[in-house]
């Protein structure tokens, strides 16, 4: 713990004290906390969303169901849970690009993407992507032509958004399993595009 900054040490002490107290009061079991942490570190992550996207790319009926009721459609693949009770999928197209944010507190569709990355939670992203999305996306490596409409979705209520990116032309002949490898987390937030898996 030697190289933690003072704020971190303080936070670490505080959560340890809180967890201690709550366990004594019978309000939680440390093992339950361990299990939750492990689930979000190991199991729940963007691979889930990648499967959803790959299925939508290869099965037009599934894609219609996904766009109509995201929660039910991802549940077909076995995904669901906290922060996914009302999932809405927004589709990219040749003339429309979607990008997701939660300006108030970084809400994110956990069941399909896991927990959000640090940049998504940063004050800079939260305030700037609504104000100057094209500039922000360019800084993040994604160029969107001015003829393409950018739609920013601010998850200010209970709906959680997932972007359904366009299937890349280069991936035209791949099967569902291979396609999943092309689907990046950033493409499902809207700050990147699907890309060939890194070797």
């Amino acid at each position, binding site marked *: 713990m030697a190289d*933690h900054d003072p*704020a*971190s040490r303080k*936070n*670490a*002490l*505080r*959560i*340890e*004290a*809180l*967890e201690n*107290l*709550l*366990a*004594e*009061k019978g*309000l*939680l*079991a*440390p093992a*339950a*906390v*361990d299990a*939750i*942490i492990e689930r*979000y*570190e*190991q*199991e*729940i*992550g*963007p*691979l*889930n969303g990648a499967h959803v996207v790959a299925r939508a790319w290869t099965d037009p009926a599934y894609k219609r169901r996904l766009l109509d009721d995201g929660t039910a459609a991802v549940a077909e693949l076995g995904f669901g849970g*906290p*922060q996914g009770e009302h999932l809405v999928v927004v589709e990219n197209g040749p003339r429309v690009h979607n990008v997701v944010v939660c300006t*108030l*507190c*970084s*809400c994110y569709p956990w069941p399909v993407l*896991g927990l959000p*990355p*640090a*940049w998504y*939670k*940063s*004050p*800079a*992203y939260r305030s700037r992507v609504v104000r100057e999305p094209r500039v922000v996306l360019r800084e*993040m*490596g994604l160029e969107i032509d001015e003829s393409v409409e950018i739609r920013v979705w601010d998850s200010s209520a*209970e709906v959680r958004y997932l972007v359904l990116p366009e299937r890349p032309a280069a991936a035209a002949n791949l099967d569902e399993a291979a396609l999943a*490898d*092309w*689907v*990046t*987390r950033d*493409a499902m937030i809207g*700050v990147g595009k699907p890309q060939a898996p890194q070797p």
Partner: protein
Amino acid sequence: MSADFLSSDGSGAPPRSNGELVFAEPWESRAFGVAAALRDRGLFDWDEFRACLIAQIALWEKQHPPDEPFSYYGCWQRALVELLAQKGVCSARELEVREHALASRPAGHDHAQGHDHDQDHDHDP
């Protein structure tokens, strides 16, 4: 604006991408896990927690010391403490007392959760 904000190596491979950590430090994971566990137990719902989180983030953004970097889980933890105090589950005072007791441990003390107090611990009067 730091370069960290801009990096987006976004490979979708195993649930976590390319060595990117879900939690930067262990205390962050505990803060997340404790909130989620309490929600599972029905002490609050995410809506209520979120309201506190929104308030803590707004407060930090309005009033933080100029050099202090944003800590999402710092705000998260403050929201949790605030919500539990509001609910009468855990007061600021008892938390303070417990922190003090833990901080007074001799170096090398076992940090396992739920350990008993040793007799030589001081409690504040």
